[in-house]
């Protein structure tokens, strides 16, 4: 356990320093000096702000000094100040993070539960009509860009049917509180969460089907059948539990990609999360904010993967933390 912790901490440190290096050099790739880049396009920042930035980053210093001062800032979670938004970058990110986590959490829950069920169904009906239909649908959603699903859902459910709100996270003017507010947020959440979820639903359906089929072919399933265990019980107790293992692993691997999807979905639905913030930063050429978001989302990925590791050890007794 101690060895595991040491290794994990080293890994996190490596990732943080690595991303800091990448960010540092990305900023230097941009045309103009770093202060100009960070302040956005010329003319938008006051000379005082530019001077402050130059001083903060010690742009007159040698490169390695600049890098170490940048690293020091990053490690103390000082990600700079967003001139455009009038707030420290870290505050902005913390403010927007919950909305993104809500969106991602709902989407993942939707994708894993429904995708898992569909995959299970397809595997148990392998080769039959239900399997063919589910597999074809999964393939189709797997090929459909997230943003386009969002746009089409808006056309159908907001424009044509007028059932659900086009965007935003809550009806601001209504001034709702308590449960009514939660219900309102829920209504706003349906389309974005479905949009983001459908793509991953396709992935988990395919994965679950393949995984279930693989486990069904294993010897211990035959042993269970020879014991006279009911088919449903075999599916849940013997097959599903083992088939979930690769799903958990994939969840960790995919997290970064889901975050990327969240940017698109939040843009389509004006969902006030990190992705929307990234989009705003993009348009205002607030590159320091953009890189701050990149940095923080990478850290989130590392932390969630840590949680996935722990979940995996709980699910698979063969794995021990080392």
């Amino acid at each position: 356990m101690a060895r595991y912790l040491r290794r994990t901490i080293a890994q996190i440190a490596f990732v943080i320093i690595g991303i800091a290096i990448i960010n540092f050099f990305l900023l230097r790739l941009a045309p103009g000096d770093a202060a100009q880049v960070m302040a956005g396009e010329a003319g938008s920042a006051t000379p005082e702000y530019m001077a402050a930035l130059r001083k903060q980053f010690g742009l007159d210093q040698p490169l390695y000094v600049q890098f170490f001062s940048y690293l020091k800032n990053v490690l103390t979670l000082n990600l700079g100040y967003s001139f455009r938004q009038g707030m420290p970058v870290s505050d902005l990110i913390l403010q927007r993070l919950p909305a993104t986590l809500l969106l991602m959490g709902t989407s993942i829950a939707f994708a894993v539960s429904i995708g898992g069920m569909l995959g299970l169904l397809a595997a148990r009906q392998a080769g039959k009509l239900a399997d063919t239909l589910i597999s074809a649908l999964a393939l189709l959603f797997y090929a459909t860009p997230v943003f386009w699903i969002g746009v089409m859902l808006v056309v159908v459910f907001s424009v044509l049917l007028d059932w659900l709100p086009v965007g935003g996270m809550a009806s601001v003017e209504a001034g709702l509180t308590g449960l009514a507010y939660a219900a309102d947020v829920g209504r706003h959440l349906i389309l974005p969460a479905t949009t983001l979820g459908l793509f991953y639903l396709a992935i988990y359906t395919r994965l679950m089907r393949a995984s279930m089929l693989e486990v069904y072919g294993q010897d211990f399933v035959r042993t269970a059948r020879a014991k006279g265990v009911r088919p449903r019980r075999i599916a849940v107790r013997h097959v599903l539990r083992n088939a979930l293992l690769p799903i958990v692993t994939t969840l960790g691997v995919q997290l970064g990609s889901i975050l990327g999807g969240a940017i698109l979905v939040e843009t389509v639905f004006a969902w006030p999360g990190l992705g929307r913030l990234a989009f705003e930063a993009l348009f205002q050429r607030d590159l320091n904010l953009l890189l701050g978001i990149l940095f923080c989302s990478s850290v989130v990925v590392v932390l969630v993967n840590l949680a996935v590791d722990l979940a995996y050890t709980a699910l698979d007794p063969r794995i021990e933390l080392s």
Partner: protein
Amino acid sequence: MSDPVLAVERLNISFHTRRGVLRAVRDLSFHVERGETLAIVGESGCGKSITALSLLGLVPEPGRVEGDAVRLEGRNLLALPEAKLRRLRGARIAMIFQEPMTALNPVLTVGEQIMEAILEHEKVSRAAARDRALALLERVRIPDAKRRFSDYPHRLSGGMRQRVVIAMALALSPAVLVADEPTTALDVTIQAQILELIDELKRENGTAVVLITHDLGVVAEHSDRVLVMYAGRKVEARATADLFARPLHPYTRGLIAARPQPGGGRARLAEIPGTVPSLFAMPAGCAFAPRCAVAEPACGVAVPPLMPAEDGAVACIRAGEIHVPEPAREALRA
């Protein structure tokens, strides 16, 4: 002689594949009595393992089982719907598999897996099932059974796992135990222990055992009767002692001749020249004829019928004529 516990009548198993119909088992009949061990021997692919699976209704897709009957304690399993068959599996007929390393679910504890066998078939409390499972672990002589009960399979050796599989199979005192190469994957010393254990449990419970193996050493020491299979058919069936003393079918003789001297390790039956013909393209006559040293033109004409011989049966038109020299017989007896 009372009714046999298990009687198989004209069993046929085929696989319908895109390349045609593969007939894995043909017209196979045999029976096993209470407290008796019937060994089914033959090379890989002769159909012995698929026969074992068919006894429990576990032949995988696209396999098809047909035949007159597989009678277990009088009930014809071939006519039973899956739900009823399931209630007999594990309860009246149980199975032990070849690979103890993969036969257990890696994410459930050993105890849970034995308890499951009990709870699936009997309405007993979890506590009672637990006690019985623990007793079973002790009975198959797993040391420190209490602690092993809550261990996961990966912490147990192959021999220990096979004991667990046996405990699971015996949980409900089945009438028939099918053991498909139960010791092939194990070390020689562990092999003997496991087979002794099966013999002992058989004696105590009067269980009938169908022992599938390719190892003639195992056959000689642990079976009462032997059924020899070649390319999906029964070619000889005799009492074990008779078979080793006077093998009648040329294939059986080949098997026994290819057997290494005692203590020389396990037998792999590869010493007979030639290979088993493709089950997709069987020769017209006796399937063994192309490899047979005493084959004559008539062997290639029609499949030889099973003829009664010395308290058993043999399917060879030359079985009666062939002279086995006395010294060779003596050597075989030894």
